[in-house]
């Protein structure tokens, strides 16, 4: 199992390419549009249910209800974004879903706070009492409000624990454990919405629509985050077979399992990997495939970043592994033209290696530019068998020592003179990606032909 496979020889039929095929268009907008349309529908629903009283307190409370409705809708959207719904994954990509989930998290927490403040202030204006007298009053009279207060506390806790400052100080396990409590928070806050919300009490159909939204969200979470992963775990029966040090700081993890081709994983994709052993159980980390999986074997090549990646070499063969995925759109289908440049930096060589395998199998002409700190860090270099369809260009050396950036436009064009006619796939640390994207754009590569994946 420890023998490394060579990148496949090029397929016989090579569609030697004329111009670029039209880039397969991203259907990003579908999910985003759904978000916007949903939010607009919530505002319209609020609008239709409001009668103008002209009473200042009631007006403030009405706006508070709108804030609450929006928060409530967006929190469902937020959960759905990370519910591993295959359609979302395919159209948006997991990383961008997570990014949107994070952004919306800020919005939701702020809207919840706004809702609470407006309801209290509006109510106190209406009752002509102080804010402090208003709070016990509404807690006494409003249905399920105590539960909602607990739910709000959980929202704030989860929000604060996810803030940039806190995330830097909090271990992943603690953060994740805190994050899970949001399901309880959402559940607790739900009852006061349908039982106490003006808009829902007065309309049975609105109540049904809201309950359906929440049930569907819960269903998606149960199916795609709990049931299917458990089923897959039982079916694939993945175990660690070997750990192979590849180069300074990089280790390959070989897994064995059953029927892995059903995963339909492609080169360049990644999985959320959880080692079922002490110290790793609570964590699932994104690891990229460094080989297109066969029916029984898959391989990840992991860099020594963060606490857990560093501990990977200590994992014993035989350890059970649970994976979720595949994720990612850093795949061969994205190529718009026959000739392709792959740029890998550091741990980025893993996905580039598996992507190259797929691209060669599809008959593309490849140049692989491999950046590393020094010669000893050029992991997997031996797997890129040079052929008429594959040129492998190792570029070792730190910028400080070289005295220049080999990925700057004037140097990159020396390495790859025909870059403007190529698709560019770049994978590595963020600054390197930025440098390559800049250089490629400068050298005339269209934005639609540049594909990137950050490895962290």
């Amino acid at each position, binding site marked *: 199992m420890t023998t490394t496979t060579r990148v496949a020889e090029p397929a016989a039929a090579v569609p030697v390419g004329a111009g670029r095929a039209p880039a397969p268009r991203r259907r990003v907008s579908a999910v985003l549009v759904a978000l916007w349309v949903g*939010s607009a529908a919530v*505002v319209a629903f*609020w*609008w239709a*249910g*409001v*009668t*103008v*009283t*002209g*009473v*200042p*307190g*009631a*007006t403030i*409370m*009405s*706006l508070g209800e*709108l*804030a609450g409705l*929006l928060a409530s809708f967006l929190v469902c959207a937020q959960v759905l974004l990370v519910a591993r719904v295959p359609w979302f994954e395919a159209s948006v990509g997991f*990383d961008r879903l*997570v*990014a*949107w989930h*994070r*952004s*919306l*998290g*800020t*919005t939701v927490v*702020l*809207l919840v706070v*706004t809702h609470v403040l407006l309801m209290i202030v509006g*109510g106190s204006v*209406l*009752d*002509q*009492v102080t804010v402090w007298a208003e709070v016990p*009053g509404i807690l006494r*009279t409003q249905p399920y409000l105590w539960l909602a207060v607990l739910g709000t506390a959980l929202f704030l806790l989860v929000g604060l624990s996810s803030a*940039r400052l806190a995330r830097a100080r909090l271990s992943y396990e603690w953060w994740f454990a805190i994050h899970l409590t949001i399901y309880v928070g959402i559940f607790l806050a739900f009852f006061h919405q349908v039982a106490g919300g*003006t808009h829902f*009490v*007065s309309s049975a159909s609105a109540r049904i629509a809201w309950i359906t939204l929440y049930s569907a969200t819960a269903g998606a979470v149960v199916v795609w985050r709990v049931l299917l992963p458990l089923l897959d775990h039982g079916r694939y029966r993945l175990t660690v077979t070997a750990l192979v040090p590849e180069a300074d700081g990089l280790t390959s993890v070989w897994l064995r399992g059953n029927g892995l081709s059903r995963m339909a994983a492609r080169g360049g994709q990644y999985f959320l990997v959880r080692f079922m052993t002490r110290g790793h159980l609570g964590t699932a980390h*994104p690891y990229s495939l460094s080989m297109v999986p066969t029916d029984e074997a898959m391989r990840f090549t992991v860099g020594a970043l963060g606490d857990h990646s560093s501990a990977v070499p200590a994992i014993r063969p035989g350890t059970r592994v649970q994976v979720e995925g595949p994720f990612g759109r850093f795949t061969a289908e994205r190529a718009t033209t026959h000739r392709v440049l792959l740029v890998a930096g550091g741990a980025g060589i893993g996905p580039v290696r598996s992507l190259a395998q797929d691209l060669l199998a599809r008959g593309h002409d490849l140049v692989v530019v491999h950046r590393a700190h020094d010669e000893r860090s050029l992991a997997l270099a031996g797997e890129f068998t040079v052929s008429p369809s594959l040129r492998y260009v190792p570029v070792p050396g730190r910028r400080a020592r070289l005295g220049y950036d080999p990925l700057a436009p004037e140097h990159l064009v020396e390495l790859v003179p025909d870059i403007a006619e190529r698709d560019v796939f770049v994978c590595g640390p*963020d600054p390197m990606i930025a440098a390559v994207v800049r250089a490629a754009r400068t050298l005339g590569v269209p934005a639609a032909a540049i594909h990137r994946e*950050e490895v*962290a």
Partner: protein
Amino acid sequence: MAARPWRGTLLYVGAVAVMTAAGVAKFGGAAGVDAAAAAPDDSAASQSSDDVATGGAATGGAATGGSADGSSGDGSTASDGDSTDGSSDSAGDSGAAGSTSDGSRAASSDDVTIVGSVAQTRYGNVQVSVTFAGTKITDVQALQIPDREQRDVQISQQAIPILTQEAIESGSARIDTVSGATYTSEGYIESLQSAIDQRG
């Protein structure tokens, strides 16, 4: 994987802008209504079953407790089963109203005032009397409004004039509920509908 920093905050700012715009669009013209709503509030507040009893008497002695259709006066065994009187809270109020309530019908040649059933809500009872000129609704008086708490009274007082105006304008019980006073509105509509039903 990195989320764009501040995008969530920007979205929130956008949401607040939308909310403000929606609020201005919805409530912007509310200043006039505000004054209009405030004026009749005092009379509505002092409105009690007594007032209406006299009002009823003026139109033909509605408050006698006797009833043309033979239902008992206090309404606890009234034929319209949705009103079960004698709720423990606001006992005095519903008792007083009970004498005029449920199915009692006042008839005169032109104006007819009919007392609607007592609608029970989470925050108290709502009951209205409706004056008809022919089949046209000319006036609606609130006999009972939710009054358990200062807050309820205020909400009701602000909502009732709006509901009354809506009822007179539409000539029916198919009127919009008032935001922030949903319970009162629903009770109002229920009682109003029962009065219209009695009128036939």
